[in-house]
């Protein structure tokens, strides 16, 4: 009984808080939305024109201005790996934006379902096909790129060191991503348990 009374006092305190009576006029919201959409269009222009242009120039520069063929292959794989990473990040942001832009979905979807979708998006970023392809391209690129960068100066020892460093980095990335995705999976499991409980 005391517990009930005490928590009621807290609830009363909570509801008594005076706010700033914040509100926005629909006209103002529409103006802001138009501005936001214009900003988004500008960003998309940059992403669709500037970024591919940069990637092509970067790939050309990396591939054709270094001499050993193995280094060229490695650097090209590196660019490919980074492209996978950017692509995956773009997909992740697009899905999240979709969920936000379709605000009526936010009203129709229960909080738990909405939260679960967010967790699933994050978990999938750390595992799945996109993740493995980007990992494979980046680390094989790093390995091949570092295989003969010094050309005549490259030694068996420097190649072994390169192999060890790249292997450690790759193993670390796999471990960290696995840990992160496991943590997110535990949160997803907890959310699902909440839906099913009682």
């Amino acid at each position: 009984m005391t517990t009930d009374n005490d928590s009621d006092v807290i609830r009363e305190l909570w509801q008594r808080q005076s706010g700033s009576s914040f509100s926005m006029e629909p006209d103002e919201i529409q103006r802001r939305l138009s501005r936001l959409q214009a900003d988004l269009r500008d960003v998309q222009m940059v992403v669709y024109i500037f970024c591919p242009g940069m990637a092509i120039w970067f790939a050309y520069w990396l591939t054709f201005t270094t001499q050993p063929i193995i280094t060229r292959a490695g650097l090209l794989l590196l660019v490919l790996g980074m492209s996978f990473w950017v692509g995956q990040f773009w997909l992740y942001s697009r899905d999240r934006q979709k969920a936000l832009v379709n605000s009526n979905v936010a009203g129709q979807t229960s909080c738990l379902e909405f939260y679960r979708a967010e967790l699933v998006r994050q978990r999938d970023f750390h595992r799945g096909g996109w993740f493995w392809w980007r990992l494979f391209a980046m680390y094989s690129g790093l390995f091949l790129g570092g295989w003969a960068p010094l050309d005549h100066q490259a030694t068996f020892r420097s190649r072994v060191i390169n192999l060890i460093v790249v292997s450690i980095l790759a193993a670390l990335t796999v471990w960290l991503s696995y840990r992160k995705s496991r943590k997110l999976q535990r949160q997803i499991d907890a959310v699902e348990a909440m839906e099913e409980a009682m």
Partner: protein
Amino acid sequence: MSEQDDWYRKAVNEHGAALERLARAYEAGPEDRRDLLQEIHIALWRSFNGFDERCTLRTWVYRVAQNIAVTHIYRSRKTKKLNLLSIEDLEESERPAATDSTATTVETQLILVQLYALIQRLNPAERQIITLYLEALDAASIGEITGISPGYVATKILRIKQILANRFFERRQS
């Protein structure tokens, strides 16, 4: 004036203050809080384009607000640095420093500050339960908004009551 505008105005009139409290429960900093509040209002106005009255206005408003708030904190980098807890973990976590202040307003402020700090440490699903509970919603209504079974919500509410009583009253009495 469109129906969408009408619903929005009605929602702000009836639940505007609750939306401010919710934004405060998710964002401690005034600027971040204002950003979140604006985001909620914009999403709310947009959402009324698809409001079909299959649920009550209150359920709709709270769902949109809570969903936008959760996305907002997940987008924020600060969340990644926090170790979000469950309600059960709160009992084990450190308690706030005691105060011997007797001034009621100061004490009220202090309780609210501590309450916000406590809420901001919770994981999103439980943060939703506690904020809706504080808005005086019952277990069935919270269940409808969050999608959590009412039985589970009722159990959580019981724990919340115990924690609030332990944290804010037993200490004062002692």
